[in-house]
């Protein structure tokens, strides 16, 4: 159970990215966050694992207050929260295998891993993770030799190395060709069915309808909607995205 309680974020330049946002995420949910660019989706996701420090409010994960955790405790909490990024955030010059293994750094022996030495079981787990996302044969390629879709699958494999209980996915398909969206989201759906909670920000409403068990909408840092995807009618849509918005379907592109 993840509880987000009255979270606000004001950046040093004065921008208020989140204004008093609260909602709960039950275990096993596939929660989708929608909203325009700049509405605070990325900030919200990064507040959960404190890549960005919230200015106010609390985030409680399995009865532990993440916002009050010491640096060492925070690292322990982060180990159980996987994250997938819009820009994949792979080290381009490193091999795919190394990128996946680096997801294990929170658990690994600090001395040997600093030297780049990994135990057999970690390597086996990394290969297994790569097999799950269907690119085991690319393990020894450089990350930048892979296509965008393949790189995002490496990103998912890296998150899997953490044995996560929660995966935060920040626009995981926004940098990809829209026809590849399902290939990536299906992996997240599969993981969700195995019991991992997923919080994912998305752009396309048809993807939201297809994958979300619940939806939270942000507008200018304020939560303007919380409920099932079906409840988003024309009026709600206009409220979330503004009067000039028109729905675009990923499938129609």
């Amino acid at each position, binding site marked *: 159970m993840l509880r987000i309680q009255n979270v606000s974020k004001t950046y040093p330049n004065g921008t208020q990215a989140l204004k008093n946002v609260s909602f709960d995420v039950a275990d096993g949910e596939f929660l989708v966050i929608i909203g325009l660019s700049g509405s605070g989706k990325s900030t919200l996701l990064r507040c959960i694992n404190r890549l960005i420090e919230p200015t106010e409010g609390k985030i409680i994960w399995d009865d532990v207050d993440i916002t009050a955790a010491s640096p060492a405790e925070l690292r322990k909490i982060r180990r159980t929260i*996987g994250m997938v990024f819009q820009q994949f*955030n*792979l080290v381009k010059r490193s091999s795919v295998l*190394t990128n996946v293994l*680096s997801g294990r750094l*929170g658990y690994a022996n*600090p001395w040997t891993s*600093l030297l780049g030495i990994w135990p057999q079981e970690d390597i086996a787990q990394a290969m297994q993770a790569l097999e799950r996302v269907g690119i085991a044969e690319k393990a020894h390629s450089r990350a930048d030799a892979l296509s965008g879709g393949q790189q995002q699958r490496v990103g998912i494999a890296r998150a899997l*190395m953490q044995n996560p209980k929660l995966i935060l996915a920040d626009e995981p398909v926004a940098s990809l060709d829209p026809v590849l969206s399902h290939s990536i989201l299906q992996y997240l759906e599969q993981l969700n069915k195995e019991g991992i909670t997923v919080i994912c920000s998305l752009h396309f409403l048809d993807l939201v309808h297809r994958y979300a068990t619940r939806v939270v909408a942000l507008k200018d840092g304020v939560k303007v909607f919380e409920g099932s995807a079906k409840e988003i009618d024309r009026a709600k849509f206009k409220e979330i995205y503004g009067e000039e918005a028109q729905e675009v379907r990923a499938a129609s592109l």
Partner: protein
Amino acid sequence: MPLPRLLRNTLITALVIAAFVISYRVTEADFPRLFRDLPKGRELLTAFLTPDVFTRDLETRTVSIVFPVPCGSASVEEVFPAEGPRLVPSVNCAAPLEKFTLQGFDLQPNSEVVIRWRLPDERTMTAIRTQTDANGYFSQEVQARPIQASVNGVASRLEVDTLTPVGGLKPSQALKDVLDNMFVTIFMALLSTTLATLIAAPLSFLAASNITRKGCFGTGVYYLFRSFFNLMRSYDPLVMATVFGFWLSFGPFPGFLALTVVTIASLGKLFSEAVENIDPGPVEALQATGAPPLHTVRYAVVPQIVPDFVSYIIYHWDINVRISTIIGFVGGGGIGYYLNLSINDFKWNQAGTAIWAIVIVVWAMDFLSAEVRKRLT
């Protein structure tokens, strides 16, 4: 307001012209002299263009005759040969300060000739140098001097050495010395670059804003190291070499230290900028996995900076070879020191050899570093 603007522009123009007049005066610019003094320059240029690179062994043969100064001061019992290698003076004896002509016949052809006096007390004095023609003949005016006067009935002798090159070309002493000194310079530059890299690489992370500049303490460390690099960079390597030279006396070691200090500052700055220019994405991703800070740097930062670091290191080695040449001039050892010595001894051909060696090495290193940088991405 047209008048004040005109006034202002006129004033600015006048100031600019005055500045240029002053700069022309202080530099004592005298461009016509470039052409007036051309003969001097040509001599230097010819020497530089004919560097002392190869040499041949010289075979020396000596012939001599007795030559009393003044006439009758000694008895002459010697029989002058009529053929074979021989010397024939225009007179058989001379008064002091009298000039006469000395001819040589059937000597070694096309050879350098050294004419000298052997005084009664066995000391020698080189009189003059000349050259034999293809028939082994030379003719040269010689002056008798009071010092060549006979002593107790023993006359001075005129000796002539012919120096004939024999055998194949071999590297000259100058070439060997230049290669030795170039070796010193290249490896001095290599060692100082290596040592500077070992020191600058870890420190550069502390001077990179994206790594250190977090919180009060981090910001302090960041500014401390950033200003440390900037401060050290503001000293010219030449100044540094002079300081170390006075401290540790002159030689390659103080030159090496000066080079190292300057390189630490310069590489530290370049490295920290490379660290600041990385893609922050992977750092964020590894922080999100719960990786410790040092491991985040090792796995997310280091792979990204390796090509930049390597190319800066090679580039700096190249720079250091050039700088250490200059440092050699103030006593830092190596090829610069050798060049300085050659110039001070007016050995222009030898200096030419050193200059050519520097040109070739700098060119080769430039080419090499460009090639390596091309291959690193």
